[in-house]
């Protein structure tokens, strides 16, 4: 089993994925994103994980998404299985996918505001009240 990791620029992204599909990477296993808030430029990075069952190898692609326009091409045409994953990233990080068949929220309710997995989105922790705790106004 081999695991390769490559960095891909956003304008080469769609073509690179297409080439790897032709090269024998049959499955898209995972698609997610990382928010490097105030740690790295650009802020968001999309991570695509491809698997080749014929060659028994994995490929992890890191695609930085420019800050000014959080848009990245959708790879649903190449791998239909990317559909749910891209919707999840859209829901959780607010990254838009061009040419996606249906880019709506998937996990959160439709009327939700904010993107929960961003680092500047609080976890929403409610302080636990114990018995006879002092009341906060």
């Amino acid at each position, binding site marked *: 089993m081999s695991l390769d990791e490559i960095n891909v620029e956003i304008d080469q992204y769609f073509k690179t994925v297409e080439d790897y599909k032709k090269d024998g990477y049959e499955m898209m296993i995972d698609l997610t994103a*990382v928010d490097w808030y105030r740690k790295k430029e650009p802020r968001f990075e999309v991570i695509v*994980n491809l698997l080749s069952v014929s060659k028994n190898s994995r490929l992890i692609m890191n695609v930085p998404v420019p800050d000014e326009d959080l848009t990245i091409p959708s790879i649903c045409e190449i791998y239909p299985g990317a559909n*749910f994953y891209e919707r999840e990233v859209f829901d959780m990080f607010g990254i838009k996918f061009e040419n996606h068949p249906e880019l709506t929220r998937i996990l959160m309710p439709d009327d939700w505001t904010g993107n929960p997995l961003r680092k500047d989105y609080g976890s929403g922790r409610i302080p636990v009240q114990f018995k006879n705790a002092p009341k906060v106004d």
Partner: protein
Amino acid sequence: MNEDNNIKDDLDFWATNSEEGGWNISSTDEGSQKMLEEEDEKQIKIQTGSDVVDDYVYSEETTDDERMIVNMGPQHPSTHGVLRLQVELEGEVVRRVKPVIGYLHTGMEKTGEELAYFQGPTNTTRMDYLSPLFNELVFSLTTEKLLDIEVPERAKAIRILMTELNRISSHLVALATGGMDIGALSMMIFGFRERELILNFFEKTSGLRMNHNYIRPGGVAADLPDNWQKDIKEILKIIPEKLKDYDEMLLDNPIWQGRLKNVGILTTEECFAYGITGPSLRASGFSWDLRKTQPYSGIENYEFEVPLLTDSDVFSRWRIKVLEIFESLKIVEQVMDTIPKGAYRIQDKKVTPPPRQRLDESMEALIHHFKIYTEGFKVPPGKAYVAVESPRGELGCYIVSDGSSKPYRMHVRGPSFCNLQALPVIMADSPIADAVAAIASLDPVIGDVDR
């Protein structure tokens, strides 16, 4: 054709059609035939169901009374949790399906960023609640890969023993609930009865029936209990006998076969396109098991086979689970015979707290213990992806570490999330009664889908 059109005008259309025998849709309905021809051109249907909306505009090909949209779930007994399906029906035939998920979204990936690495398994174990030990295993393996440590041989063997038992219990629930969905109610009782055996062993070992938090970074939480071989021997003796009962009841049962054979076809190409792994892929005639191809935790030392069926229908997806239970039992037996002696967790002071009796003797040990359980151990910066073969397919964990004691980003690739995308493909153009069988055969766990 004229005769068919007359029937179509008849109000009693479906009743008449069913008398003629079978669901011969393409010969009676021109619209659907055209649709099928179009779909043949594309090899893999990109069917997201995105055009199923409540204010659906009917096309000219169909008349108004033929199509309707039915909402199934989220509270529904046969959707395996809180899955919601928007089903577009033409008569009794499913045309398009749109799965709506998120009704069990728990924010575990966000919570995972707040918990230290030693607390991580507590969180991940609650994702796929039918196979909790696999979630713990994959999180621990990823953390260990980042830490670059190797756990002792005994810990590896215990991990394999527990996860393979968990695979059996998970498959038993899949068989039980799948049987119940299709109407084999005895199967429900049987499956849960045998599962209790394994859960009793889990309770003895880890203290809990589910959500164990037993496999942790650096090893396992506790050693196996005294006389554990006796319990395993009992499991090894009873479960194969009971599986024979299942076969007697269902395998040659003409009703069961007629209900499941050639229903819900999912081919290898569709599996590749949607990233579907696990029993569904193996039932479509492609042998792919991470335990063989990308072995983890020393599973390459045990002899077992990967069952393979080629029919790619609901029946073979049901059958392959039964066969996999036999293989898991083989592994459990080998682990029992060959388990090495030694430590059950790594003797690395960085990760493992000192043993209990040392706390009474040494101040340093006490401080060390306190540091590990308040602050947690630090993990060097980096990224890691590790995958294991869970009962439903590839379960992966992707962790980004920034050098602190908490993961910077923790993402779990749940197999059910991906497998659920196959539902529109499986259910399209089949009667609504088969839809329930199709959902059951995919065995989705909504906790794993929504996380």
